[in-house]
Each structure stands twice: as structure tokens, then as C-alpha cells.
């Protein structure tokens, strides 16, 4: 579906993503993980045409994304970013903004199809009951759901999310990620998301890409990537990895200082 080949890019200053190669298949949930400043969000921004590659390419269905018209791209790729500014508008108005790429230039009013799709997105995300609330007066969890509803209203094939669970409590984290999983399995939506929490990433993603200092450290299934040697090396923290008793996905346990000092002394 989307493929990065030898991608190198960055901002004006010194930081760069270096030589990233990644191929995301149709219907996959791909998690981007890595320490702070490892280039996770930069990678996502390169995939959404905010950042232009210095070298290498990103292609969507075998076409370089920089050769696709922005409007066409917005009908295929939707982004849920942390940088969205809130505005004094109702949830429904906000969700309807997702129809913009489908509108004609002088189309002044949504047609029935636009309304139906917005309604369906709100149903799917459970935001229909708050559709008349103001977007900046709802809770953080509801806001995240509204953001996803807006993205779905674009009718994308690929959904990119930038840390969709930040600042949410566990019930909302799970609610958002369950929703993403459902969208993936029921609508066949391909998902790429940046996640901070390694355990959530391991639990919900089919594959993970671990970035470190702008380079790919490891790509593979959660079992392959969430390995205590790799995690300790990249995060420079002592950890224990055990499987989740229910899902048997690997989970990371941190080891607090006192405990990890003792074995060292004994050695």
C-alpha cells in the first residue's frame, strides 16, 4: 500500500531521518515506536507530504506521493494528528470538514451522501450522541474519537495516526485502539500509527517498526521487535519482557532503580 524507499529527510536543523525502508501491506496495522526524538513523528509527517524527502521516495500504490494531487491524496490517506487546532464548532460541523477533499470548488452545501458518510463515521466512533456539542468543550477521549470520525469521513484507504492515545486514561486508550482495530478488521482500513506505549503497540499492531536516532533499528512482528535486548539497547533502560497472559503478546516491564542496582553489585 505505502512504501518508503531509502527515505532521508528532516527539518532545516541537524536532525534527519536516514535511509528508511518500509513496506506496509494492505490491511495491516503498523506501529511506529521508538524513544523521544527518534523520528517517529517526522516519519509520519514525511508520509503525509508535510516534509519533503531529501532523497529516497515514498510511494502510495506504486505512485510517488509527491506526484499525486493533494486533493486526490486526501481521498486516500487521512491523518489524525496531534496538531489539529480546535475551533468553536460543533462535533458534527467538525466531522463534516472531512468531506472537503470530495467537494467541488464552488459546492456550497453538503449533499445527502456527505451527510450520510459523516453520520456513519460518527456512529462508528460513538460520537453521534455528542454531535451538537462544541468540539473544544468535550473531553480529551471524545475529542480523539471526533478526530478519527473526521478522518473516516474522508473515506480513506489508509489511516495515519500520531500518538492517538496520549493524554488518555486506560479506558479511553483501549476504547480508541479497539475502535482502530475494528476499523481495520471490518472496513479493511490500513493503519499506521505512532505509539509511545510499547505495550499498547505490541497488543494492537500486526507489525512494528522501531526507530532509533533517525534510523530503523528493527522491523517485524511484536514478538521480534519487543525483545528485551533490543529494547534495553535502544531505550537504555533495564527491562523485563514477559507475555501477556491473555493475548500472549510480549509486554515490557520496567525495573526500578533499587532492584536493578543489586544484581549489578553481586555480579
Amino acid at each position, binding site marked *: 500500500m505505502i512504501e518508503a524507499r531509502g527515505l532521508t529527510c528532516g527539518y532545516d536543523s541537524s536532525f534527519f531521518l536516514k535511509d528508511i525502508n518500509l513496506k506496509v501491506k494492505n490491511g495491516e496495522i503498523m506501529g511506529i515506536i521508538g524513544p523521544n526524538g527518534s523520528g517517529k513523528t517526522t516519519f509520519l509527517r514525511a508520509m503525509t507530504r508535510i516534509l519533503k524527502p531529501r532523497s529516497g521516495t515514498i510511494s502510495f500504490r506504486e505512485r510517488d506521493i509527491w506526484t499525486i494531487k493533494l486533493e486526490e491524496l*486526501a481521498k486516500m490517506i487521512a491523518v489524525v494528528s496531534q496538531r*489539529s487546532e480546535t475551533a*468553536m*464548532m460543533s462535533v458534527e*460541523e467538525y466531522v463534516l470538514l*472531512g468531506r472537503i*477533499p470530495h467537494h467541488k470548488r464552488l459546492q456550497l452545501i453538503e449533499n445527502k451522501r456527505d451527510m450520510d458518510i459523516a453520520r456513519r463515521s460518527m456512529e462508528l466512533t460513538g460520537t453521534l450522541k455528542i454531535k451538537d456539542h462544541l468540539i473544544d468543550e468535550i473531553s480529551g477521549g471524545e475529542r480523539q474519537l471526533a478526530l478519527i470520525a473526521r478522518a473516516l469521513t474522508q473515506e480513506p484507504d489508509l489511516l495515519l495516526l500520531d500518538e492517538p492515545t496520549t493524554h488518555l486514561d486506560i479506558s479511553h486508550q483501549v476504547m480508541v485502539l479497539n475502535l482502530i482495530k475494528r476499523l481495520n478488521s471490518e472496513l479493511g482500513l490500513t493503519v499506521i500509527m505512532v505509539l509511545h506505549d510499547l505495550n499498547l503497540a505490541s497488543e494492537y499492531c500486526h507489525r512494528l517498526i522501531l526507530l532509533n536516532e533517525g534510523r530503523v533499528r528493527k522491523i517485524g512482528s511484536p514478538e521480534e521487535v519487543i525483545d528485551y535486548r533490543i529494547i534495553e539497547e535502544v531505550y537504555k533502560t533495564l527491562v523485563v519482557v514477559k507475555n501477556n497472559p491473555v493475548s500472549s503478546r510480549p509486554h515490557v516491564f520496567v525495573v526500578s532503580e533499587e532492584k536493578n542496582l543489586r544484581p549489578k553489585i553481586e555480579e
Partner: protein
Amino acid sequence: MNKKLTKWFLWVGLLIAGLVAVSLFSLSVGSAAIPIKKAAGILMGSGSGTEHTILFNIRLPRIILGLAIGGALSLAGVILQGIFRNPLVEPYTLGISGGAALGVSLHILLKLNNLTGLAGYPLAGSIGSLLVIILLYGLSAKKGILKMQGLLLTGVMISFISSSLIMLVMAISRTQDLHGIIFWIMGSLEEPSWTLIKIMLSISVVGLFLSYFYQKDLNALILGDEEALHLGVDVERAKKGLLILACVLTGCSVSLAGIIGFVGLVVPHVTRMFIGKDHRILLITSYLLGGTFLILCDTLARTIIAPMELPVGVITGIFGGSLFVYALTRKRVFVGGGS
């Protein structure tokens, strides 16, 4: 959906009714009072003589110019606030009005109207404001990305510089030109040339029409530049088009009526408070309300201390400024974070 459309039609109808009412009021009051009924009759074609002359040669031109300029300035305000997601932005604060004023002063000083004819004033104003925007772009758009704070600060500085330069122009111009410049800078809707009035009206109506080509982009920009890009908007191109539009609207307005502040700041805010921030309805309603507001202010300006006349900027300043403060303390009307 139909509910929304009905609501929008109601607002537009209401504002048109308001515009007509204020225009009729403005036609009837003045040093020679003409009852509204009679004024309407004369407009329809009956009557002649002095009253006919007063209506058609003095009051009606001002009303039409008021609509054109009030609408143009409000539209420029909506556009600029939409681009910059900042409620304090308007043609004046960005230095666009200042640039236009400087352009027109130079035009008067150099007597270019012998060359360019009547259209020279709006042309000079538009060129002045466009030069300001090009300068702003050059200074703060490094590598194609418009950085907002830099732009705003530079805009305020350009305002200062252009008013200093206008002083300089005044200092070195001859007495008869000086009179022209001062008279024009005071700001007035008195314009003897029907041709210029017609030009201004067409520019502002065409501007309104063109702004609708960008309504999608303006709505997407509410969410920020990056989100607009994610919604398929070519942000840089949309911004350039919108800035040029705002410049031409401002430049023409300033060239005909001087600097009239606060219209572009207050009218969009009031409209947003009542109607919301959807640009599909905001553009037309701001235009109508802006026209109505300026006609009302101008009517007050020429009647309050009749037979003398106040500069209309005094009224819009007092009116607009206090309304602005009131609105800010009462309700959140900001466009966005303005980061």
C-alpha cells in the same frame, strides 16, 4: 442540511433587509430632510428638482460607495483572519492599508493621474498594498513557509514605516497637493466621480465572488496549515491567491476613501459571533454587514455635527473599538489559537 440552508437564507435575507433599511434611513436624513416615503418615490423615478439632485448626486453615491468599501474591507478582514487564524489581523494591522496609503500619496505627489486617469488611484493603492505583501513574503517566508509571528510583527513595522513615509511625502509636497493628500487621508466616502464608484463596486462584488472559490480552503485552514494540507488543500497556493485578493480589495478601498480602521476587524467578529465560522456563509454575511455598518457610520459622520462633517474613520473607530472590547469580554470569539 436543509435546516442549515434555511438558516443561511434567513440570515442573508435579514442582512439585506437591514442594508435596505439603513440605506433608506441614510437617504432621508441630512441637512435637507427628505421623508423616507418620498425618497423611495424619487428613487423609483418620480419627482425632480433639488431633492432629486441631493439624492442622486450626493447621498446615493455615498451609500453605494459605503456598501462597496465596507463590504470590501470586511471581506479582506475575514480572509486575512482566516489565513492567519488570528483575530487581531486586518488590513490595517498587517500594514496593507499603510502600503496602499503610501502608494496613493506618491501618486498624488508625482501627479501620475495625468498619465493614468481616474483608475490611477485604485491602481496605485493596490500596487502599494501588493508591494507590502511581497515585502512581507520576502522577509518572513524563508523557504516557502510563512511564519506567522514574524509576518505580524513585520506588518506592524511596515505600518509605522509607511506612515512616516507619508509624512515625508506631505512635507515635500506643494501646498495644493498637500491639501489633496490631507483631505484624502482623513477618510471620507465623498467621491464625486460616478465612474470611480462604479469601479469600486464592481471590484468589491467580483472580490466577493472570487472569495467563494476559496471557501473550502478557508474552512480547512481553520484547523491549521498542516490539517488543511491533510484535507487536500494546496496551502501555499491558496494563501497567495487569498492575499492578493485581500490586497486588491484593501488597496482600492484605501485609494478612494482613505484609511478607515476597524471595519475589517469588528464586522467579521460580530458576524462570527452570531453566525458561526463556516466561511460559506461568513463571507457573504460579513460583506453585507460591513456595507451596512459603514453606511450607518457615514450617515452619523455627516449628521452628528451638521453642517460640518466628521471623518468616517472617527465613527468606525469609536463604534468598532468599543464593540470589539465588549465582544471580547463577553464571549470567546477567537478564530483559533493563533500559534
